């Protein structure tokens, strides 16, 4: 009965709300009512629990289990112990793909957040609703295209010889940039494309957070003589820092799984320059049919994502300001 109120970590609102009084022991029908309510509760979560158990819980355990086996799908799996993990830490190309992923992910997160915040601050200064709606729509539109579609048309735009981007760079007096044909160029191109598409997400988040900054705080700071820049860095940014943390976590989790754009645009090339961790996983699993090793890579990636997210939260304890 009182389960609704117990751990505040999961149910922050429930504790403060007037919860039902303690179970009235002497009322005769109370136990039956509680049992009925519980049955109803289990029935209600049944469907979701079935699907989440079969297609998420069990697969997590299975991935972990598989990572201790060698299995080529055709012959029965053989026990490998920690062999797959040992192999991972001495597998140059796969380690390199993790390095590439981390570097590209960091670049994506930094650019996406700073650009999103910059644009959100500029839009937040505007008073007209038309202006706000127009820019919000403009920056959100790229998110309406699928990553596959974006990879396709950006591939044409960034084409080394015929692409419109090099054409305009030539007009400005620059020589052709080997966007997708050089290792570093391909990495830069993919980072730019992801940022181009995703910046609208952080932008929308930041605009709504900035709009929620209480006006009396802003008035107080302007009465105290703080200029717009000071208000921004001393008042607004600290107040929206929880949103910035959230955006950083989401952007980083997504960027660590980067797959579609490099797979479609460069197939992980040139060479292995844009072979990300997930492309490595895909190749070992579904092309070389090493399901055990691929699972081990998956588990390492999962642990890495969890570790980075944990670090973000730890580091942010000092910086993030909760009201």
């Amino acid at each position, binding site marked *: 009965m009182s389960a*609704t109120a117990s751990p505040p970590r999961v149910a922050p609102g429930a504790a403060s*709300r007037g919860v039902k009084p303690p179970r009235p022991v002497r009322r005769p029908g109370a136990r039956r009512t509680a049992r009925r309510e519980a049955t109803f509760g289990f029935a209600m979560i049944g469907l*979701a629990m079935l699907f989440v158990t079969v297609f998420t819980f069990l697969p997590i355990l299975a991935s972990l289990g598989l990572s201790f086996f060698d299995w080529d799908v055709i012959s029965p799996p053989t026990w490998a112990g920690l062999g797959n993990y040992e192999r991972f830490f001495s597998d140059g190309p796969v380690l390199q793909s993790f390095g590439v992923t981390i570097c590209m992910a960091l670049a994506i997160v930094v650019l996406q957040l700073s650009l999103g915040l910059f644009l959100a601050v500029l839009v937040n200064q505007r008073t007209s609703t038309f202006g706000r709606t127009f820019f919000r729509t403009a920056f959100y539109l790229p998110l309406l295209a699928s990553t596959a*579609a974006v990879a396709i048309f950006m591939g044409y735009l960034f084409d080394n010889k015929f692409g419109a981007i090099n054409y305009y760079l030539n007009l400005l007096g620059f020589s052709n940039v080997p966007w997708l044909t050089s290792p570093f160029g391909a990495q830069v191109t993919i980072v730019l494309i992801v940022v*181009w598409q995703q910046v*609208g997400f952080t932008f929308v988040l930041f605009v709504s957070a900035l709009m929620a900054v209480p006006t009396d705080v802003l008035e107080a700071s302007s009465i105290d003589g703080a200029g717009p820049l000071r208000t921004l860095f001393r008042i607004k940014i600290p107040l929206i820092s929880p949103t910035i943390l959230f955006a950083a976590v989401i952007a980083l989790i997504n960027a660590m799984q980067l797959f579609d754009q490099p797979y479609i645009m460069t197939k992980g090339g040139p060479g292995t320059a844009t072979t990300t961790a997930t492309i490595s996983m895909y190749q070992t699993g579904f092309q070389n049919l090493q399901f055990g090793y691929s699972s081990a890579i998956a588990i390492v990636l999962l642990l890495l994502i969890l570790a980075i997210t944990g670090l973000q939260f730890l580091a942010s304890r000092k910086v993030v300001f909760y009201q």
Partner: protein
Amino acid sequence: MSATTTIVTGRGRPARATAAGRRRAFSIGKIAGLIVLIIAAVFALGPLLWAFSTSLRTPADAFTNPPQWIPLSPDFGNYAAVFEQIPIGQFFLNSTIVTLVIVVGQTITCTLSGYAFAMISFPGKNWIFGAFLATMMVPMQTIIIPVFLIIKTLGLTDSLASLIIPALGSAFGTFLMRQYFMQMPKELGEAARIDGASQWGVFFHVYARMAAPAISTLAILNFSGFWAEFYRPLIFLQSQSTFTLPLGLVGLQGNLGTGSISVVLAGVVLAMIPSVLLFIFAQRYFIAGVTAGSSR
């Protein structure tokens, strides 16, 4: 701080002068800000506009520079050509079926479970909900092999069902709906119970109707996610007759090489139409979807 002291010490004139100067600087800043925003909007919209206008150029012209930004003599031949070169109608149908069934399915499963986690007492509730939350951090790609094996065991490989069935439940959707139900007053349900409504009646007639905004947000999130999905289709689907739009378009691009990019772009534009239409009519739910998770 120093500005405050100036005002407090009573030197009115310089303080006022500074304020006026600041106001002017501020409005110059505002104009500069507007210019920056417009430039940013040009960069955001440019590639989309290019894709659209190039899809209206003849295949022979499509790769010639300068790009034609405004289609002065639009050629709709590419749109007919997409339908001739790939079964894009079939891709559309497949994407529609997959997306629609997942949207409806998750609406049902997540509304039911979200309501139970928010409103109903049952033993182990917080443990189960905690386990749900824990899975939200797990990327699809790290569990793809076991999911693929389950799909294979069920005999569903190379079918639309292989995309649909694993996506019918969602920890995130449950979380989203729960958060929404948590904000609703419990008294409403208690009053309805006293009036003789059943548990199901309270859920269905009282609370589910009030949850329409959250349901719309979840539906839009799922639409955007699954309409654009590339990774699972790439792994689960083999024959062209089961392809969804993103997979089909990438296939078209691969088949054609560099010859007729305008045809590929026509396909890209066609695939975007449903998203754009939905965005026009339900923009606020797209925006709500962005901020949905941040209440965590």
